[in-house]
């Protein structure tokens, strides 16, 4: 019997086994998502939760390229817009509904993101940021001048999502179920990517690109790959937003929304699994909880961003994770105090 050609698995399986903490946290988050509508939050809060859901989906894409590969985009809303408009255009031109448009939107955003990312291979990080910023600004101009195809400044309308098994997605609680279902899929996909060898490859590029190339990583190919993935998440977010709002217009995808997405990812923490979700929740619910008008909210976002950069470089999720580790370390040290040498940290 011959050995399989690639029997090497440097430490066990292809994907890391989740730790006990990760499983507990996953169950808690899932329980929270399921329980939220059962608490009778009312239409206003449920609709904010739907907004949080599709925003978080877009952020999971941004987290892959920024948190894992280390490449920040400030044009992510533009990529979301490509998917959103792809769905709206094929709805108005060909009468295609949500389910037919879904793969089209995802593919359109993914290819757009890969295309926008190409120039970044030749230039350094800051240049890519400027390119993405210009992209979202240019997209708004193009959409505003797109005549009847894009609906110009007025934008486009879409119909309702066709019911599946008699579920009417016009009801807010069903819209919530749809968006949070996709959100859970995105979180699982992100977990798999981050904990696979591919996630490690992306982190190698983030940490030390020359060294990554010296051990055989084609960093350019993987960068385009992660832009593509990031764009796919953005496209999904775009079509969900389109069919939730039922009307889209160019300003939704301009420079300001893009900056908000970058703000949310830094606020929540790009390197932790629930960072994007936390960022989306904070920014979406902050004005509601704090009774802030839009101007005050912008000021609050600015202050929050400065505070996070200064105090929590890993975002809120990074800060919570650090706090948890510190507490565990203290709790473990207390009973083992008599031991002169602390045991090495065991795996798991």
């Amino acid at each position, binding site marked *: 019997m011959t050995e399989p050609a690639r029997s*090497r698995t440097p430490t066990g399986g292809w994907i890391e086994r989740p730790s006990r903490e990760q499983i507990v946290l996953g169950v808690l988050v899932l329980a929270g998502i399921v329980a939220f509508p059962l608490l009778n939050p009312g239409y206003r809060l449920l609709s904010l939760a739907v907004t949080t859901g599709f925003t978080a989906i877009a952020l999971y894409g941004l987290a892959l390229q920024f948190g894992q590969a280390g490449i920040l985009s400030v044009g992510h809303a533009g990529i979301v817009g490509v998917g959103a408009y792809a769905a709206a255009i094929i709805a108005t031109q060909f009468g295609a509904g949500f389910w037919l448009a879904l793969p089209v939107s995802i593919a359109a955003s993914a290819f757009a993101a890969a295309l926008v990312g190409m120039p970044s291979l030749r230039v350094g990080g800051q240049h890519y940021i400027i390119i993405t910023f210009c992209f979202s600004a240019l997209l708004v101009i193009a959409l505003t001048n797109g005549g009847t195809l894009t609906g110009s400044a007025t934008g486009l309308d879409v119909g309702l999502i066709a019911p599946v098994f008699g579920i009417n997605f016009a009801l807010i609680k069903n819209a919530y179920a749809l968006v949070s279902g996709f959100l859970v899929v995105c979180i699982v996909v992100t977990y798999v990517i981050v904990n696979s060898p591919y996630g490690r490859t992306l982190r190698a590029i983030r940490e030390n690109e020359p060294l990554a190339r010296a051990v055989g990583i084609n960093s350019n190919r993987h960068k385009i790959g992660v832009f593509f993935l990031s764009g796919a998440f953005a496209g999904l977010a775009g079509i969900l937003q389109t069919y939730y709002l039922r009307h889209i217009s160019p300003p939704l995808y301009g420079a300001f929304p893009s900056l908000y997405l970058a703000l949310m990812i830094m606020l929540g923490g790009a390197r932790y699994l629930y960072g994007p979700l936390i960022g989306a929740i904070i920014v979406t619910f902050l004005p509601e909880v704090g009774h802030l008008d839009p101007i005050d909210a912008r000021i609050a976002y600015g202050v929050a961003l400065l505070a996070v950069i200064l105090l929590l470089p890993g975002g809120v999720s990074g800060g919570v994770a650090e706090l948890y580790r510190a507490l565990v370390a203290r709790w473990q040290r207390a009973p083992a105090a008599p031991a002169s040498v602390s045991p090495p940290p065991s795996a798991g």
Partner: protein
Amino acid sequence: MAALEIIGIHKKFGGVVALAGVDITIETARITGVIGPNGSGKTTLFNVVAGAFPPTAGRVVWQGEDITGKRSYDIARRGVVRTYQQSMSYPALSVRDNVRIGCEHGRAPNLRTAARWQSADEILDFVGLGGLGDVTAGALSFGNLRRLGLAVALGAEPLLLLLDEPAAGLSDSEGAALTELILSFPQLGLGVCVIDHDMALMGAICEHLVVLNFGTKIAEGTPQDVLNDATVLDVYLGTGT
């Protein structure tokens, strides 16, 4: 067997000539040293061989195949892996993950036979970092960081290792321990080429020495021959008359 042939390599940066026609043959299963004062073109030579940038003229042939101007990752996948003098690791990742990244790339996609190493931890044990797998690479001491740099490169299953000043910045005892480690590489069937300007270190580990000065080869041979060569002494110590 000649594994790597460097044939007539020229490299110019604008008007500056870094390499002016260098010919070196590196054989596997022994340690070759390239020595020369600062600015003699040692690192430029590595950069050309490992694919960081193409030469202005000349060829690099690896196992009979012309690899001149190929990308660095392509060259690594063929089994020629370099280390860096300064940035040796992925600082925010664990020591184990640093090595796993090497294991998952390098020659792995083309590797038909069983790998030399069964796990990243086995490599860490070999380089003397056993038990440090869970530590963040950025928290390692400089000496351990040098060892990690070697472990990352070993993970990529190289056939020829290019080491860029592997002992720079180490204390005498750390340097001696690392030297011992490097001396064991040929027994793994691994070709090694070291660049450094430390004559004593190079005399101790290399079986074959090449001396560069101002981008040209001025001497070549066994360490004893080279270190007694009049031209070499002149470059290193000055004429004294």
